[in-house]
């Protein structure tokens, strides 16, 4: 039995739909996140990321479909599902009556944990909050409040941690210390799900990525596959005369830019024959740049494709 539970996925989302009146926030969304993954959920504003997280956390109820956390259904077995999940909500919220330590003690208590002070001290330390432990929540800056929210999500050492835009409006220092901490948690075996607007963060941290648009999953792949999907590399060259490219390379042309052309290279091996051909045609190479495809590029092109 224990073995079976250990085998279950960290998160399973099966055919989840959610409407608010006429608006379809989620439309038949399905995916699975395995234990120990660092998973990114990307999408423009209004794509349904937060609605999906709300359904997972039991803050919203899906109209259709099922969600499970560590094998526990979020509706029928909500106690076990919520105990396994730590969520950092997107909105900056706090209880103005409490100090930082009280906030964390109460949060531990809601999860049924007594005497959680040793762990509370540890997360306070990891998040750089130790010297704020007895400050009232009202007295903290926005960034500090955000750290407390991260701490609140971790009081019960959840195996699955969901961070909904945790670095929105947060200073660079916190962003970096937060990611170091989250990576540590991931290495310790916690499953991390992240939504972010900062694509470089997703690219740097996550191993698998789902892209959500208008309530639907439009891509769900390993980061490397997703990056490779847009044919790897782009080459920008400027020749003199700026004449036309030799025939076989015409199809590689993506666009004109800064007085040169951008070509999509199928592989790095294609570069040498290209340069050779240019020489044979009597074209002099004035400038060139080789560009790796980044997540932002894939993201923008996929969102654009979907619109067409």
């Amino acid at each position, binding site marked *: 039995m224990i073995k079976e539970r250990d085998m279950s996925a960290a998160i399973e989302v099966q055919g989840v739909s959610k409407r608010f009146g006429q608006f379809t926030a989620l439309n038949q969304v399905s995916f699975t996140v395995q234990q120990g993954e660092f998973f990114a959920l990307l999408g423009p504003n209004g794509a349904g990321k937060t609605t999906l997280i709300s359904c997972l*956390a*039991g*803050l*919203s*109820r899906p109209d259709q479909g099922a969600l499970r956390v560590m094998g526990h259904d979020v509706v029928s077995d*909500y*106690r*076990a*599902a*919520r*105990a396994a*999940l730590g*969520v950092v*909500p997107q*909105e900056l*919220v*706090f*209880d*103005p*009556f409490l100090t930082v330590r009280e906030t964390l003690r*109460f*949060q*531990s*208590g*809601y*999860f*049924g*944990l*007594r005497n959680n002070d040793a762990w509370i001290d540890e997360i306070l330390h990891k998040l750089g909050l130790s010297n704020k432990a007895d400050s009232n929540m009202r007295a903290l800056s926005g960034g500090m409040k955000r750290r407390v929210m991260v701490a*609140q999500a971790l009081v*019960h050492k959840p195996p699955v941690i969901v961070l909904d835009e945790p670095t929105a409006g947060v200073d660079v220092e916190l962003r970096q210390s937060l990611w170091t901490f989250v990576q540590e948690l991931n290495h310790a075996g916690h499953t991390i799900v992240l939504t972010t607007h900062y694509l470089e963060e997703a690219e740097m941290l996550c191993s698998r990525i789902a892209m959500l648009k208008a309530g639907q999953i439009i891509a769900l792949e390993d980061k490397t596959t997703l990056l490779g999907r847009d044919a790897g590399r782009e080459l920008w060259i400027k020749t003199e005369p700026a004449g036309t490219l030799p025939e076989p390379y015409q199809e590689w042309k993506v666009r004109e830019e800064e007085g040169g052309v951008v070509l999509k290279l199928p592989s790095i091996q294609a570069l040498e024959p290209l340069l050779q051909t240019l020489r044979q045609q009597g074209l002099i190479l004035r400038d060139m740049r080789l560009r790796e495809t980044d997540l932002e590029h894939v993201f923008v092109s996929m969102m654009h494709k979907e619109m067409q």
Partner: protein
Amino acid sequence: MYGFQTLFKKEILRFWRVGFQTVAAPVLTALLYLLVFSHALSRHVEVYAGVSYTAFLIPGLVMMSMVQNAFANSSSSLIQSKITGNIVFILLPPLSHREFFAAYLLAAIVRGVVVGAGVLLATGWMALPPVEHPLWVLTFAVLGSGILGVLGIVAGIWAEKFDQLAAFQNFLIMPLTFLSGVFYSVHTLPPFWYTVSHLNPVFYMIDGFRYGFFGVGDTDPWQSFTVVSLCFVVLSWLTLHLLKSGYKLRH
């Protein structure tokens, strides 16, 4: 179970930390009512034989303060949490709807009883009423605060802004408490209003509570007990269903 205890403790702490506003202020208000009304009326009114108007008024004011504060406790705590958004920290943990209900309800009863005891202490020196049946006093104090505590939970969940909550409070709770026989015996009312008063559950709370002090009342205490406990059970049952359905909390 510890989740419930924690939420209950937090709710107690919430009103206790602002005790001037949540306990001292209603005690002072009740004392002012007593001073003004007893001065104006004590020479002209004797409701029950051998009981001064001031003594008659005290249990009514105690009960009125209890029910108003029990309502205020659960309703304002919930609407504040909803509007500031920190209710999410109570919705994310594995607390059941029963634990949620019990914590808010018990905290409301505690606030009601604490304010009630405060009013009794502050006014008792003027005309300390005898306590004929302490068990009735306690029963009606708890049930009365309980009913309004439950109504406070409903109002707090239903209202989306302070304005709506104020409407609930001023157009429903205030008339029900003021027109319940706090300041007069319903036997002095014209027949129509006498009948209407008997449709008001707060009337039974106050009458039963007052019976506990003087051993006399406008109706039989068992009848009051039946009405009040029935109201409590039905309202609690409905509210538990509301919470289980996730109405306005888990949309």
